[in-house]
């Protein structure tokens, strides 16, 4: 066991920033896979992915609440907040990369890796970055050379550090309560927003995230009797639902889950704007989408920085993004050998995001401003 890497409030803040980057990094891959599914097909799979994506938004919000509670400042507008796909997970897991790909067995395999259970092979949470032979790892923001085995281990480190720092610094929870996102502003199902005001509520929020993602104490169901994300995705792998009594070591034994891998738009994996024909109508649509996506992150940023009621507006943004993604994905990508276009989630350059650069963003901005 290696000693803790979190010794004071600044360390905690660094970890929580990284946690927000991490939670967000899972969303574009889930959205890409979800919206690649043909409408009115693959209902089981679509629901599973959609619910997980929505719960990642909840996790992002919970981390923001913890960060705000200890006087931190969430920042979703930093240039490196959105990774460039393919990417390693920001916690340092290096045995797999995360792609933006259509719904497929490969995508499901990646999703399972993202959400894999917390336990490292030999019980060690932090591992030297050099031990690349081990299946997976995640970096510590305070010790570059250290990586975590999984998101669960990463949160276990934060939970432990939080307790240590709270014991040392009595005024750790000095954040303005008005910055907390309360349940009336965020709803997702799969758990309520937890308002963080002290160590107890902070621990509940973080444990909830870890538990919902990867399961608790090796079980497949959490306290609310909900299946952890990892096991939800395993169901897609096996084509069968879990049911009560199933063990994490066995295949699920519940009813069949029907998957039609062909009822999916074959979107280009990790599409970039550079893949789009220059000056095409389609390229403009893709740029418009990115502008809207980053405007959405900007809105979240404002919401997490003292205007929590804006999360209600953020929902409208998400629904518009949904329509935008669908429109892009149904367009063939010229010159790609039959593949379809996909949103690129690239940060707009100044030219792209100039006011009035496109009709789409103009409309969106107007609808929100009024």
């Amino acid at each position, binding site marked *: 066991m290696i000693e803790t890497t979190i010794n004071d409030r600044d360390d905690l803040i660094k970890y929580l920033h990284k946690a927000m980057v991490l939670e967000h990094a899972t969303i574009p891959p889930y959205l890409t896979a979800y919206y690649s599914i043909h409408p009115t097909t693959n209902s089981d799979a679509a629901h599973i992915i959609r619910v997980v994506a929505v719960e990642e938004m909840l996790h992002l919000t919970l981390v923001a609440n913890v960060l705000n509670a200890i006087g931190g400042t969430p920042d979703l507008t930093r240039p490196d907040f959105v990774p460039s796909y393919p990417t390693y997970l920001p916690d340092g897991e290096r045995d797999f990369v995360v792609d933006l790909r259509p719904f497929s067995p490969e995508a499901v395999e990646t999703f399972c890796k993202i959400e894999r259970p917390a336990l490292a092979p030999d019980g060690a949470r932090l591992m030297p970055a050099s031990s690349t032979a081990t299946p997976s790892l995640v970096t510590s923001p305070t010790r570059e050379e250290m990586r975590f085995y999984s998101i669960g281990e990463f949160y276990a480190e934060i939970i432990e550090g939080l307790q240590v720092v709270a014991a040392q610094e009595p005024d750790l929870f000095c954040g303005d309560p008005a910055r907390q996102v309360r349940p009336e502003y965020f709803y997702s199902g799969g758990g309520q927003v937890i308002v963080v005001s002290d160590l107890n509520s902070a621990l509940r929020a973080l444990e909830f995230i870890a538990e919902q993602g990867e399961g608790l104490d090796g079980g497949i169901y959490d306290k609310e009797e909900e299946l952890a994300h990892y096991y939800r995705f395993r169901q897609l792998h096996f084509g069968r639902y879990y049911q009560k009594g199933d063990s994490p070591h066995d295949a699920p034994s519940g009813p069949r889950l029907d998957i039609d891998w062909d009822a999916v738009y074959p979107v280009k994996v990790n599409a970039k704007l550079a893949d789009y024909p220059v000056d095409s109508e389609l390229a403009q649509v893709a740029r418009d989408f990115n502008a809207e996506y980053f405007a959405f992150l900007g809105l979240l940023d404002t919401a997490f920085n003292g205007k929590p009621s804006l999360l*209600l507006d953020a929902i409208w943004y998400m629904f518009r993004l949904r329509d935008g993604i669908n429109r892009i994905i*149904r367009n063939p990508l010229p010159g790609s050998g039959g593949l379809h276009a996909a949103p690129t989630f690239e940060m707009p350059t100044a030219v792209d995001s100039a006011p009035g650069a496109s009709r789409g963003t103009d409309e969106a901005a107007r609808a929100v401003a009024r």
Partner: protein
Amino acid sequence: MTPDALEDFLSLSVDLTAFERTDLLGTGLARQYLAKVRDACGEDVVTALLEAHRAARTEAAEDGARPDPQRLDRALRHRIFSEERLGPVARNVIKLWYAGTWYGLPPEWTDSYGAQPAAETSTVTAASYQEGLLWRAIAANPPGAKAPGYGAWARPPAIEDRYLKGRSHDRTG
């Protein structure tokens, strides 16, 4: 179905609907709509319609430039909308894109040109209703799909300015 026919159908549809090509492809239904028109009216009618549209665009364009809108409008009226066989089909194509429903052609049309087995009123797929362009034109969602989110209805509709013609709806809120 040849790729050319799909291209021609998209080009026709852009002129008929005033939605962009990416919007039309973005419904995911362009191929199915072309197939539906073929099944409902027959191959010959579709070929004639696409030819008439090409001819109208050529007539409206000077020296290969973009067609002049006024001349194109006139050419479409003369070559398509007023044409006995093509007019009702073109109007049906518009409604197909806007409503997602194929409406049965008028009886006088079927009397003259024959009834195809797939000619009666029907939705093309469960998705076609949801993709109707009508709803985008009025900045609303098709009832039962593509919801805008809680409370979005309290804001003014995001109708593009060019269709508001200065009739402000900013007096509230």
